[in-house]
């Protein structure tokens, strides 16, 4: 019987639609994490959101929820010892205790034959605790507010088969930047959180990158590289702040037949973020005087998407750190959990 089982070049692109849409969802989910911590959360690319490539013309609405609990003290490539933490604190450095972030992101994606645009609106709920300078100072905060909105465009008309493309967009300064400590010792209450802990960076960032995709049989793969750079910053109380540039390389693969109900996926994310700068950035390491933000991280993210019919799918991912090299002392998390639902129309 004649039956064309081998995907053509076009299949390589179009067969990846749900895979790519799901990676978009994953990246959206980690957006808030990037803002939650000056360095640790940054290891997960906010930039993968820009890929957002759905090769089927039309709209995709997506709603996702991510959870990350950053409660591990890390220094360089390993866990920070109590002795080291004590030394840093003794030298006057503030020690972050925990940062718990839940992000609900609504996004709308439109795709034409050769171009598309994706808009993401994150709503962030974040609680945080910090040991301040001194022996007994402690501050805690809770903030529920809109994060930084992203508008990302993409163009896939460079190649006939649309297996590659370029992406460009903006992260807008819509997130709040004025959260203060609301609990703890009197010395800290009503003082502002570090800029890196605010739900918004206050900056307008340019996002640029490109991507490639392909397939072999029922295996599809995708890789993307992006750069995020702040082109406009916001000065608060006379203190300027510029989030560090982020360089991100994402790659992933999936296994499924075209239109499969269940699609397992595996993604790998490499992120290098330069330290934040400006008088409003987190203070330097009290022992080395080196930067206390930025670093290099690698995460592995297994996940799956389930089609429930009528153009609606649900998905879930868990992101696991496999390599962490942070500047100075930063908070890390054991995992990030992301659940979402999307509908194409």
């Amino acid at each position: 019987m004649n039956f064309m089982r081998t995907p053509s070049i076009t299949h390589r692109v179009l067969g990846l639609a749900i895979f790519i849409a799901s990676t978009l969802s994953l990246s959206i989910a980690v957006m808030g994490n990037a803002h939650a911590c000056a360095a640790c959360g940054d290891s997960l690319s906010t930039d993968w959101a820009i890929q957002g490539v759905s090769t089927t013309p039309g709209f995709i609405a997506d709603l996702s929820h991510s959870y990350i609990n950053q409660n591990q003290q890390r220094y360089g490539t390993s866990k920070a010892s109590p002795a080291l933490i004590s030394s840093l604190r003794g030298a006057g450095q503030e020690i972050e205790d925990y940062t718990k972030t839940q992000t609900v992101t609504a996004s709308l994606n439109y795709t034409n034959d050769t171009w598309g645009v994706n808009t993401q609106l994150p709503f962030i709920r974040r609680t945080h605790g910090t040991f301040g300078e001194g022996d007994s100072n402690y501050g805690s905060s809770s903030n529920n507010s809109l994060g930084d909105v992203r508008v990302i465009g993409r163009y896939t008309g460079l190649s006939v088969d649309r297996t590659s493309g370029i992406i460009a967009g903006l992260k807008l300064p819509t997130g709040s930047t004025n959260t203060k400590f609301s609990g703890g010792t009197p010395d800290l209450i009503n003082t502002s959180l570090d800029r890196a802990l605010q739900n918004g960076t206050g900056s307008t960032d340019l996002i640029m990158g490109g991507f490639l995709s392909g397939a072999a049989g029922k295996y599809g793969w995708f890789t993307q590289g992006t750069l995020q750079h702040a082109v406009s910053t916001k000065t608060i109380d006379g203190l300027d702040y510029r989030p560090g540039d982020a360089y991100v390389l994402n790659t992933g693969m999936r296994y499924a037949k075209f239109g499969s109900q269940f699609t397992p996926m595996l993604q790998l994310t490499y992120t290098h973020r330069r330290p934040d700068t400006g008088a409003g950035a987190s203070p330097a390491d009290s022992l080395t005087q080196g930067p206390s933000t930025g670093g290099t991280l690698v995460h592995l993210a297994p996940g799956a998407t389930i089609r429930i019919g009528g153009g609606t799918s649900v998905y879930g991912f868990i992101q696991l750190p496999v390599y962490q090299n942070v500047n100075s002392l930063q908070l890390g998390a054991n995992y990030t959990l992301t659940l979402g639902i999307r509908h194409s129309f």
Partner: protein
Amino acid sequence: MLCVALLLLPSFAHATHNHDLNLKDKDGVRYTLPSLHGKWVLVNFWAPWCTICIHEMPELSALQQQRADLQIIGVAVMYKSRKEVLDMATKHAISFPIVFGSEDIAGDFGGLDGLPTSFLYSPSGQLIGHHQGPLTRKQIEQVLEQRPEAAALFVR
């Protein structure tokens, strides 16, 4: 709440599989089983690059023109652009409605192992089965006439 909803939704996946088809063609006309009650319905998945699919088209077009008790719906998938689909429809004078398909639409039919793949519904709206590979006009007519020798062409 979202988490709970997400955990519950997959349980509905099986229930929604093989649901009433709901396809909108390139001109915006929507096709459902109730709207096609009384007619055989053949949903044919194809792609512009699929030579076997293209060779099947004249047979399907001729059959559609010949039989008023049959509605063929072509669902294009894995195409580069909508223009490519429209050009192909024009070039081969396709006489039946064309839907711009997607992986989601293929998912509603349980996914595709290859192309072409056709799904046949009875005039009462029951899914007869699916057929992988090209179909001839004669084969389809035999199925519609419920000839025993054609019974195995469409499988559940």
